[in-house]
């Protein structure tokens, strides 16, 4: 067999396994940032979501995303990976229903495995933002729809040879395709759900500390590791210099994001808040995802530095907008997914991956690339946010979206799953603290934003 096929397949499969492991990372970060009484629910969501994604992407998602079709949607080989395909043949030798990904010199099932773990990531991003109040069944249904329909459609535009790909929109490993799509779907869910009971009261925002920092930190390390599959693996080829270059830009952005978010938190909040450091790391990773193959190591450090600061301001900003995102998923995946995609338009240098992006604005390439990136970010955002909003509202009408206030107060673990995460540990009573008035201007009034309109207010 052709050695290149062997090498590329090995690399793609190993990288895919690392990305798969990110599910464990998300599960740990999200349960660590949640409360003990909702831990079984958070773990269950994160555990089942990849199972759902596996079946949904196999059943239909892959076909919609990579099937030959028009600029908006795949139409061939839709169901059950059933299209004709003579992979690993490439180029002119390729014959089959999935021409858009025929450039990868690996068997069809290797392509599918690698793309599947990406689809799973988009779905799992949602789970953190909607945690601690969403119905288990509703989350499962939404995940299925996201991976079977929404994610593959915008995915087709970008990676499936669709109109954005033709326009010259570049997103190497998925800042937009995966992360901001997950982020927009999450934002829609958060707005339909409203904030957790007790999060915003009387014009104040009450912190709801995560119950286990070791879990959250472990999760962050696992995600960081997984990103070495996510970005360098997106070469889908064992290209030595590309893999090494991408691993390094990825790592540098993470490191820079850690530093800048820690410093920003230290300066703004007064303490180096570990939860901000973790979000900063992930923000840097998300931000470099689009450009990891197109920018220099120096640029990756700058992108990471900006991402880390963005995360801190985004967390504080969503709080003031009364948008309740328990784990910072919006700040990490949505905000930095958008930023990272735009950063390609600024920092790309043609030399790193010739015949792709060309040079960005800061390297003499003019604003054309940036404009394409803006168009991509905007259209993908509009579509995903709009469609998700529709799906969430439909689910709300049909099966309900939020657990009862009693259940939410008691914890979803008992209500949804009938069990406790830590049945033997003494859990201290919540509350019994006062919010300290900060120097920041007071939060906007209730009702001034969609999120609070639909908020459940049990205390009132």
């Amino acid at each position, binding site marked *: 067999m052709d050695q290149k096929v062997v090498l590329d397949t090995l690399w793609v499969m190993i990288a895919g396994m690392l990305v798969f492991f990110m599910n464990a990372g998300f599960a740990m970060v999200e349960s660590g940032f949640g409360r003990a009484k909702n831990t079984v629910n958070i773990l269950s969501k994160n555990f089942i979501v990849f199972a759902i994604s596996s079946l949904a992407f196999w059943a239909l998602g892959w076909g919609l995303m990579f099937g030959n079709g028009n600029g908006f949607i795949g139409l061939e080989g839709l169901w059950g990976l059933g299209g004709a395909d003579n992979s690993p043949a490439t180029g002119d030798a390729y014959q089959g229903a999935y021409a858009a990904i025929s450039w990868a010199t690996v068997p069809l099932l290797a392509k599918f495995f690698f793309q599947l773990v990406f689809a799973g990531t988009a779905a799992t991003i949602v789970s953190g933002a909607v945690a601690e109040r969403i119905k288990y069944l509703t989350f499962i249904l939404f995940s299925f729809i996201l991976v079977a329909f929404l994610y593959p459609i915008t995915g087709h535009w970008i990676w499936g040879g669709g109109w954005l790909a033709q326009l010259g929109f570049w997103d190497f490993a998925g800042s937009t395709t995966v992360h901001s799509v997950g982020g927009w779907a999450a934002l829609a869910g958060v707005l339909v759900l409203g904030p957790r009971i007790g999060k915003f009261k009387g014009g104040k925002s009450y912190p709801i500390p995560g119950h286990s920092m070791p879990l959250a930190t472990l999760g962050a390390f696992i995600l960081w590791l997984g990103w070495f599959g996510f970005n360098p693996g997106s070469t889908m080829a064992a290209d030595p210099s590309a893999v090494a270059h991408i691993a390094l830009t990825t790592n540098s952005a993470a490191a820079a994001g850690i530093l800048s978010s820690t410093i920003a938190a230290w300066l703004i909040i007064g303490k180096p808040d570990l939860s901000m450091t973790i979000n900063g790391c992930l923000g840097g990773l998300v931000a470099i995802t689009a450009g990891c193959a197109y920018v220099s190591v120096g640029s990756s450090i700058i992108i990471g530095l900006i991402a880390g600061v963005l995360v801190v301001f985004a967390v504080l900003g969503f709080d003031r907008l009364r948008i309740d995102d328990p784990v910072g998923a919006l700040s990490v995946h949505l905000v930095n997914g958008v930023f990272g995609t735009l950063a390609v338009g600024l920092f790309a240098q043609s030399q790193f991956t010739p015949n792709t992006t060309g040079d960005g604005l800061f390297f003499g390439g003019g604003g054309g690339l940036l404009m394409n990136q803006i168009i991509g970010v905007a259209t993908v955002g509009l579509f995903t946010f709009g469609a998700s909003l529709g799906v969430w509202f439909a689910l709300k009408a049909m099966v309900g979206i939020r657990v009862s206030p009693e259940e939410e*107060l*008691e914890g979803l673990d*008992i209500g949804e799953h*009938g*069990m*406790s995460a830590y*049945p033997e540990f*003494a859990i*201290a*009573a*919540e*509350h*019994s603290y006062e919010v300290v008035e900060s120097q920041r201007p007071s939060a906007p009034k209730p009702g001034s934003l969609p999120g609070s309109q639909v908020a459940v207010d049990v205390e009132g």
Partner: protein
Amino acid sequence: MKRIEAVIRPHKLDEVREALMEEGFRGMTIVEVKGVGRQKGHTEVYRGSEYKIDFLPKIKLEIVVPDDRLDQAISIIVRTARTGQVGDGKIFVLPVEEVIRVRTEEVGSEAL
């Protein structure tokens, strides 16, 4: 002096504490306890077996007050801790013979 011991619902603690402090009761001690009573426990499942947790989490608030403020304290607690559902809890009043502040060795009401 009397000691009030109020077994209340955990999520009512904030309200009770705030009301007491507003009325000038500045010190109190709480313990996390578990209670059995008329209120039904909840059912959990583990690996197919169902079981009922009889003991429910409660907070016991202990506050020592001078005799003349006993009724006031009780009525604040009753007012703020009540939801009207079974399981709101009970208040016990016990006699206290002496109070000493460790730091100053003040005794009696001075020590509160």
